[in-house]
């Protein structure tokens, strides 16, 4: 990714005017927002037509969180993800055909059919793993940030977690470590309102999860998680702080998942249709598109071209997954232990 224009970063840091990423980045953001949406909608269709892709947690509705944060990161930066991780993967640059092949359980998958939806990883693009043990990925991002600090690189790590994960000890231990060691971490809480069927107002002790930042002497902000530009702005400020060596930040993104916790979950057993309809009114893609057109940043033709190109990419991803070879029984026994290498000398 390209770095932001000086104007927008300066504005973001000073908190004045409406900062914006450069045009090229806006283009990229719309491309990623719609690619995630297309991936998840196609996946949902595949699930409903009986394709056995294993357990999946759709990211649909939350796209602006992953895209806004990753728009503020550099390619060499790291992210660690949650069980609801497809969006984070795509935003950080994991190839969709390898993701789709993984979901199909094919040898060509991102994890060679050993991971599935809840473990998609691509360390080449800084994606340290989808992680379905809630909160654990946060500690891994903290470790990656420690690695950056010890090795004296300028890398930053973003740790995604949900408002459900905000209650687990790992997240708090990770925040405390990052704070005392001033590690370059951006904690990103995607507050979609529900941990499975448990609402945030029941399970979380504070009105805003960002309030908890105070306990770790770090800045905490709550942003509209349906506004990709607002998320980008907060993440850009947090990244700059991290890179300066000033330590971590917490960003709470208010968002909403359109579908159930997983593919089989009926949301109307714990939330109302009225609430769901209202959330869809705040759709992050429609909002971004309108913003681009209203401010004449991108044209309708450009945006349409992105969408149709993405449809084609997902068509190709599905075709790649379907035509890829299945694993062989012998693959069961590969990669249990990390191979040793001759390290050359004692």
């Amino acid at each position: 990714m390209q770095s932001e224009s000086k104007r927008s970063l300066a504005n973001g840091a000073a908190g004045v005017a409406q900062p914006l990423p450069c045009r090229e980045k806006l283009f990229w953001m719309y491309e990623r927002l719609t690619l995630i949406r297309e991936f998840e909608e196609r996946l949902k269709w595949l699930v409903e037509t009986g394709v056995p892709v294993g357990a999946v947690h759709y990211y649909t509705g939350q796209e602006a969180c992953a895209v806004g944060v990753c728009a503020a990161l550099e390619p060499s930066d790291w992210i660690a993800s949650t069980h609801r991780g497809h969006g984070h993967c795509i935003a950080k640059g994991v190839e969709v055909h390898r993701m789709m092949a993984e979901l199909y359980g094919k040898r060509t998958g991102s994890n060679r059919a050993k991971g599935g939806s809840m473990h998609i990883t691509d360390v080449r693009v800084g994606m340290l793993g989808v992680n379905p043990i809630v909160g654990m990925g946060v500690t891994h991002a903290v470790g990656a940030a420690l690695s950056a600090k010890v090795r004296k690189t300028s890398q930053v790590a973003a740790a995604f977690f949900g408002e459900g994960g905000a209650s687990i000890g790992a997240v708090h231990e990770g925040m405390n470590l990052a704070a005392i060691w001033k590690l370059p971490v951006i904690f990103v809480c995607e507050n979609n309102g529900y941990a499975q069927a448990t609402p945030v107002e029941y399970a979380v002790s504070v009105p805003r999860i960002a309030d908890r930042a105070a306990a770790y002497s770090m800045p905490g902000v709550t942003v509209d998680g349906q506004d990709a530009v607002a998320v980008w702005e907060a993440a850009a400020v947090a990244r700059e702080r991290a890179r300066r060596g000033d330590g971590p930040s917490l960003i709470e993104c208010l968002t909403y998942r359109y579908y159930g916790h997983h593919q089989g979950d009926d949301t109307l057993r714990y939330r109302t249709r009225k609430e769901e309809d209202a959330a869809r009114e705040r759709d992050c893609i429609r909002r971004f598109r309108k913003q681009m057109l209203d401010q004449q940043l991108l044209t309708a033709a450009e945006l349409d071209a992105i969408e149709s190109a993405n449809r084609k990419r997902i068509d190709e991803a599905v075709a790649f997954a379907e035509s890829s070879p299945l694993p062989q029984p012998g693959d069961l026994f590969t990669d249990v232990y990390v191979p040793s290498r001759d390290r050359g000398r004692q």
Partner: protein
Amino acid sequence: MTTTAVRELSFGQAINEAIRQEMRRDPNIIVMGEDVAGAAGRAHLGFVDAWGGPLRATRGLITEFGPERILDTPIAEMGFLGAGVGAAMSGLRPIVEIMFVDLIGCCYDQIMNQAAKMHYMMGGQVDLPLVIRTAYGTRGGDNRTYGGGAGAQHSQTLYAVLAHIPGLKVVVPSTAYNAKGLTISAIRDNGPVIMLEHKFLGLKAKGPVPEEAYTVPIGRAEIVRRGRDVTLCGIGRMTHICSEAAESLSGEGIDAEVVDVLTLSPLDEDTILESVSRTRRLVVVDEDTPVCSVARDIAARVAEKGFDNLDAPIKTVTAPDTPVPFSAVLEAHYTPGPAQVISAVHELFGTGA
């Protein structure tokens, strides 16, 4: 390599030297844990290196490598072991100390679900060069040992719940010599290795250690005493108990072989099976509790693969299926000693009291 000096070192000193030599060689090695140095941030008052870990195995490292690489942590096993996992995925080679194995309950997910499985479930794309060091064990019958009597939550062995996990290597050194070599092997391994260090080896583990860096291979057991009549298989401190029993048995004409298992996972079946094929009798001695234990796993493997070579049923000598008691009297009963090993051997030969 030129010949270098061989000195007598304690168990902790040997581990310390291994870590120190490896850290000099590789700037990506860091040490993390509770009071691995001690007095963090108090250098301005003249306090550094107040503690050095429970076995003092990391004492002095901070004065050579500084607080950037010797990291005292808050009491947050799940957090700092997770940070170790993340750091291992992203370019460092962390050595993380969990003060006592009893504390793995606080961070078991990071071991079981994270570190051990990353390489496999990510399709082999990540290395995970992580060493976890942890202290285990009761004081046994030695009432003079300072620090015993720690009760049920600070005296356990628990390596069975680690050896059970695929993808994790589990090593249990017994002497200063193999502790240094296994520590270096663990550090150089590209995957997660957990090393369990007995708290009360004391003088038994002290011994000659070459100054130079060397490795003791992970995954290989060692025959520490040759014998014809029975194989005594020991783990960690129990290897010394086996040797004491063997010494005593030789006085009554029974010639026992002693195998130090050293690595619990992956287990060196070949060495154990080969030994049993010669001695035709096996006693496995394990300080851990018996249910689903390494002792019974070894017994089962030998029963499956070496049954035809056995002249007698396999015996296991383990701690009882109870928590570790507090009282020194009970703790001495709890921990296997030479007498129980000798008694098991007598049963095999149909002799004794």
